[in-house]
């Protein structure tokens, strides 16, 4: 019987060889694939139980990992709470939002730039520690923006503020209200976490939304800055010229009172011709509507796109809503979609003062004034200033990047003069700062819904001749308050500018 026993031995040997080959394949060749599978909860849990790097503003962490005695070892803590929540986002097992998400590789220590540190940690037997991320935010500006916005719109209000350093594109403040406390969402206690999320997610005021980059609304009169830029840049008018205005204007090719453009009672717009600066100071709808039609939809759109409309530019935070200037209009007649066509004059006219289909995020409007403040050069906005090791050695500093020249320096100078006049003598006066030349523009955008309060906007920068800060304020809801002109937005913008300039 020994011959078959030997055959059985060889058979058994092959069984074992097959097992060994298979397990080698699994643990050696396939391991990388499984270990990077996003569905692999081990990967997420391991990252979650690691000491993550800090998110820093100035010298203070606004997100840090605290050792705790549970299975995940570290709890993510956000000392900044509501103030910084829209920027930091929050960390959960297997998911992150905000900077926690965009800088996940650095914070978790997986970034290639941290390779040497990982190696040293490994040799020293230390646990792998994530790198730090230093943000561009200015704590004074951020706090000023949040406090002013919250106090202005009231506890039931909604709004956002963005401040940019025009020369670099550094985002100095990014505030969204209402906000949330990320600590509850980062809790290791599942019930606490889920309850907090359900409450926030179910809230009609959408506290989880970062309105500064995720909400796009009619920019209203603040868009007149873009229309003016298009007019000057294309040689249609100079800042010194007179422009056509009028108390009302029936948009070309339209009839009926709903298509009559008026100036909401601002008498300074009534003459048939007024100075460009008077048109800006009084925020004359008729003037900018006529100007837009003269420039034409294509040129107007090109100018808007040079400022960043119809594109994405923020790399450090997402998701970002794209600001829109309509390229074309698709009519629907009897439920049938027609071929796209160019904007007609009536539509162009309404686009000229930020209505019709023009929509902008607060960040986009901040970029418009930031480019004007920077003599026409539009910088890429950024939030991450430095990437550091856990021991605060700088690995990489973000270099400011010019996206494009949105307008010529001459056009920028002329627009600055117009906007300074608007603060000094016009509707934007609430943003005036003693001893500093401020450029600004108000905005009040109709929602297109009868009986609802408009959106309030305010954009500004200062000092006008050497701008340190450009601000956009958006007020979505301010129950019980009159959202008009610069009354609400102006003081908020002023507070932010002062916070930056007083440093």
């Amino acid at each position: 019987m020994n011959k078959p026993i030997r055959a059985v031995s060889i058979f058994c040997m092959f069984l074992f060889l097959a097992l060994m080959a298979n397990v080698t394949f699994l643990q050696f060749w396939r391991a990388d694939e499984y270990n990077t599978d996003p569905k692999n909860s081990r990967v997420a849990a391991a990252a979650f139980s690691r000491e993550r790097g800090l998110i820093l503003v100035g010298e203070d962490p606004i997100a840090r990992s605290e050792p705790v005695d549970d299975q995940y070892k570290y709890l993510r803590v956000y000392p900044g709470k509501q103030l910084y929540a829209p920027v930091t986002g929050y960390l959960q097992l297997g998911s992150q939002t905000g900077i926690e998400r965009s800088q996940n590789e650095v914070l978790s220590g997986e970034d290639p730039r941290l390779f040497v540190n990982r190696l040293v940690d490994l040799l020293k037997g230390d646990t792998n520690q994530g790198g730090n991320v230093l943000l561009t935010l200015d704590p004074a500006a951020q706090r000023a923006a949040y406090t002013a916005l919250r106090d202005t719109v009231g506890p039931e209000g909604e709004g956002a503020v963005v401040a940019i350093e025009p020369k670099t594109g550094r985002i100095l403040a990014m505030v969204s209200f209402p906000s949330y406390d990320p600590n509850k969402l980062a809790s290791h206690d599942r019930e606490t976490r889920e309850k907090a999320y359900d409450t926030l997610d179910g809230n009609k005021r959408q506290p989880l939304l970062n309105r500064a980059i995720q909400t796009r609304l009619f920019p209203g009169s603040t868009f007149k800055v873009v229309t003016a830029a298009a007019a000057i840049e294309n040689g249609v008018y100079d800042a010194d010229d007179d422009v056509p205005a009028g108390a009302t204007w029936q948009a070309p090719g339209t009839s009926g009172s709903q298509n009559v453009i008026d100036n909401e009672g601002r008498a300074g717009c009534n003459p048939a011709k007024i100075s460009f600066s008077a048109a800006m100071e009084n925020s004359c709808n008729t003037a900018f509507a006529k100007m837009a039609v003269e420039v034409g939809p294509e040129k107007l759109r090109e100018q808007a796109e040079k400022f960043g409309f119809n594109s994405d530019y923020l790399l450090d935070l997402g998701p970002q809503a794209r600001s829109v200037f309509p390229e074309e209009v698709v009519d629907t007649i009897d439920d049938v979609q027609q071929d796209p066509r160019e904007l007609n004059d009536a539509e162009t006219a309404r686009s000229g003062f930020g209505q019709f289909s023009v929509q902008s995020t607060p960040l986009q409007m901040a970029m418009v004034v930031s480019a004007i403040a920077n003599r026409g050069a539009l910088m890429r906005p950024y939030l991450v200033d430095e990437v550091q090791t856990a021991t605060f050695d700088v690995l990489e500093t973000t270099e400011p990047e010019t996206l494009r020249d949105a307008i010529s320096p001459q056009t920028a100078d002329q627009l600055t003069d117009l906007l300074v006049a608007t603060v000094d003598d016009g509707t934007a006066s609430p943003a005036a700062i003693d001893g500093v030349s401020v450029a600004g523009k108000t905005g009040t955008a109709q929602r297109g819904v009868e009986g609802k309060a408009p959106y309030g906007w305010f954009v500004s920068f200062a000092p006008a001749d050497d701008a340190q800060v450009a601000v956009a304020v958006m007020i979505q809801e301010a129950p019980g308050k009159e959202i008009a002109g610069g009354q609400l937005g102006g003081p908020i913008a002023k507070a932010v500018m002062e916070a930056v300039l007083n440093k």
Partner: protein
Amino acid sequence: MATNSALMGFVHRRRRGAELFLLILALLVGVGAYAAVGLGVDGEVPTNLIGYGGWLTLLVVAAHVAVRRVAPYADPVLLPVVAALNGLGLAIIHRLDLARETGLASQQLTWMTLGVVLFIGTLVVLPDHRLLARFTYTSGLAAIALLILPMLPVLGTEINGARIWISVGPFSFQPGEIAKLLLVVTFAGYLVVHRDALALAGRRVLFLDLPRGRDLGPILMMWVVSLGILILQRDLGSSLLFFGLFLVMLYVATERPGWIVVGGLMFFSGAAVAVKIFSHVQNRVDIWLDPFADPSGSGYQLVQALYGFAWGGLIGRGLGEGMPERVPYAESDFILAAIGEELGLTAVMAVLLLYGLVVERALRAALISRDGFGKLVATGLAAVFALQIFVVIGGVTRLIPLTGLTTPFLSYGGSSLVANWVIIAILLRISDQARRPVPDLNEQQDDPDEQQTQIVKVVPS
């Protein structure tokens, strides 16, 4: 008597000293792993390390002394290998206990104690394995009874879709584990008597000697039993195991590969039909083909096991540093995934080599055994061991579809552990008989008591 491989004049050494040395290494594995689990999970050496290590040492020393006394010529490698596996299994179960706050390791230690007691008992009660041949039909009946037990309404318990358990009071018990040992004895006893009839008659088709139709009786019966287990108990693994075991033993007894061809065809056609007809078998095959089709549902266990193996990589995460508790049933069928995750490919290879050694040593005992019954029992036990390893480890590493079987000596589970300790005792007994000097050759100087001719009822062969 069958052919005898022992060379005339050659005397096997007892090698009990070597066994003792290997046992110390095995204890180092078991106790060391237990201490490493404590260090890895809690950051300190477990407080009961002395007690635990002492008990493990006591069990191993008791087994060794028993072998020294009643089976002095037995193979010196088998006992240390299974002691190492059992110790490692205990440490891993303890590791999972700490993660899940269960207390399975102490129960497993109790089962191991019972296993070692039965191991010693078997060696003492069974001075010659050929005594087992007396129980050919008794054990066959007992095996069938044990296999039927789980299907009885009160006793039988269905766990995870397989009806292979019986519950008596607080104890649950998997009779199939005992049945596989009884079946080996039955097959060996039957085949050693009928091997000539099965081997000689038949007709030649192409280059294969196919068996006679009338000799197909037993194989048909075994086929029906296997399919019965598959269908009624939904236990693909046991079904494959029993039928494979029978085929191997039939082949070894008759030396005719034709049996394997016939039996293999029968099994695979039966299994193919079963896949078509029975949804639970179909499910297993679907999970095997694409576990990621439903990674959080039906494929969850296998997917988590695969992630676990990958997570361990070459050297593993270290005991206490992985997340083996994510794999459902990591303490039983999927214990190798826990080992792969925390100790890496290195340890998985070591475990496979240890299992390979058990099979190799068992087959070696079969080769040198001086009687046909011993050869068949040893081969059968080796085959059942190898097949079980292949089916369960192949299943958890996605080499073949997953079937529910325990990993011998590692998995949590009393019936399996106890049965396997008895299997090792029988293998030691066979190797002791095989390696023992032929009594009527030249007189040896040491211990004349050992040399006494033992009276054994010789089994016709």
